[in-house]
């Protein structure tokens, strides 16, 4: 009886430990990022709108992630010379080295998803699918929400939009 309880407690401890060990471990993976990009600094501090960088949001299927030539428009000079983070991008711009962005929000290729349709025509907010990126200070996302079919489906059903398979899948 005692042993069983002990095993149960140990399972719990193990689970919690496993969760934390691995979450710390994966947190360190943020260091592997090419650029310690902060959405917070760009959007909240400098008041840049999403669409300014993700230019395809209202016009195309893919929102698009800008690369080094776009970054160079601001970062060709050091804006805040104290910032360590900025030096990294400044360096990259100087070397004109494309950034290997990591893409978190992706739909599989058998899904037809268009940003224009959802943002411009459907009048959805960015945060409806993505988390509030304006508060993300590091590339490691807090409270990442996965793009899975129920997410689409619930919204489509709620708003009485087509749920025909062939309208999104091909």
């Amino acid at each position, binding site marked *: 009886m005692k042993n069983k309880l002990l095993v149960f407690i140990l399972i719990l401890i193990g689970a919690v430990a496993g969760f934390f060990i691995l979450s710390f471990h994966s947190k360190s993976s943020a260091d592997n990022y090419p650029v310690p990009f902060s959405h917070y600094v760009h959007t909240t501090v400098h008041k840049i709108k999403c669409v300014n960088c993700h230019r395809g949001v209202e016009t195309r299927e893919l929102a698009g992630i800008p690369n080094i030539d776009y970054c160079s428009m601001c970062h060709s000079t050091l804006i805040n010379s104290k910032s360590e983070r900025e030096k990294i991008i400044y360096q990259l711009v100087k070397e004109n080295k494309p950034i290997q962005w990591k893409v978190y929000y992706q739909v*599989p*290729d*058998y*899904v*037809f998803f*268009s940003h*224009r*349709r959802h943002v*411009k*025509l459907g009048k959805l907010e960015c945060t409806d699918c993505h988390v509030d990126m304006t508060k993300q200070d590091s590339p490691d996302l807090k409270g990442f929400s996965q793009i899975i079919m129920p997410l689409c489906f619930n919204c489509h059903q709620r708003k009485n939009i087509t749920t*025909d*398979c*062939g*309208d999104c*899948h*091909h």
Partner: protein
Amino acid sequence: MPRYGMIIDLNKCNQCEACITACKLENNVQIVSKENADMGRAMFWMNMLTISYTRNYPDIRSESLPMLCMQCDEPPCIKVCPVRATYKRDDGIVAQIYPQCIGCRYCMANCPYTVKVFNWFKDEQPVENEKTCNPDVSVRPKGVVEKCTFCIHRLQKAKEQAKAEHRKLREEDYVPACAEVCAAQAIHFGDLDDPNSNVSKAMHDYRKFTLQEELGTKPKVYYLSAKTE
């Protein structure tokens, strides 16, 4: 709701097979290896079916029918699908949902036109074809059945474009790749229910026939016979 259909004028078609190539490239249909092609696993969403009239040489004539999914109004394939991977849409297109398909190939067995194809292996395109993949269309994984969908991705894009421009979908907005490239202009595509569409106009022709009418599948791909007499 439109009801999309196609008419192929065999009197105009000169079997250049551009529709086949266009279909293959537009939909990223797998190019199988030599060994597999040899076994009969070549994948074509659009195909040629050669029919020869049995008259004596040299009066003999032959006719080749571009064969694609007939997009039946009463599709035999959807009846047998155990998982609803293939179904008929409201606009008449018989769609195939690849992430849903379990690969039992029952629909292939029940297709009287033999136009469904199966991914026997995982996709291995030649390098140059990988580079020219159409980004609008998914590359199917191994083990699923696929078929012509009247280039449904073009419909999705066209609908969105029309909506963005605050207008209705025009006829020329949505045309499948095969109809677009046909040099002989033998393939007409459009809304069968709209009396003003190209297709409806071409329907009033005594040469009109469908394949295997007797099966009652009611194909939405019609042919105009080349036999004029």
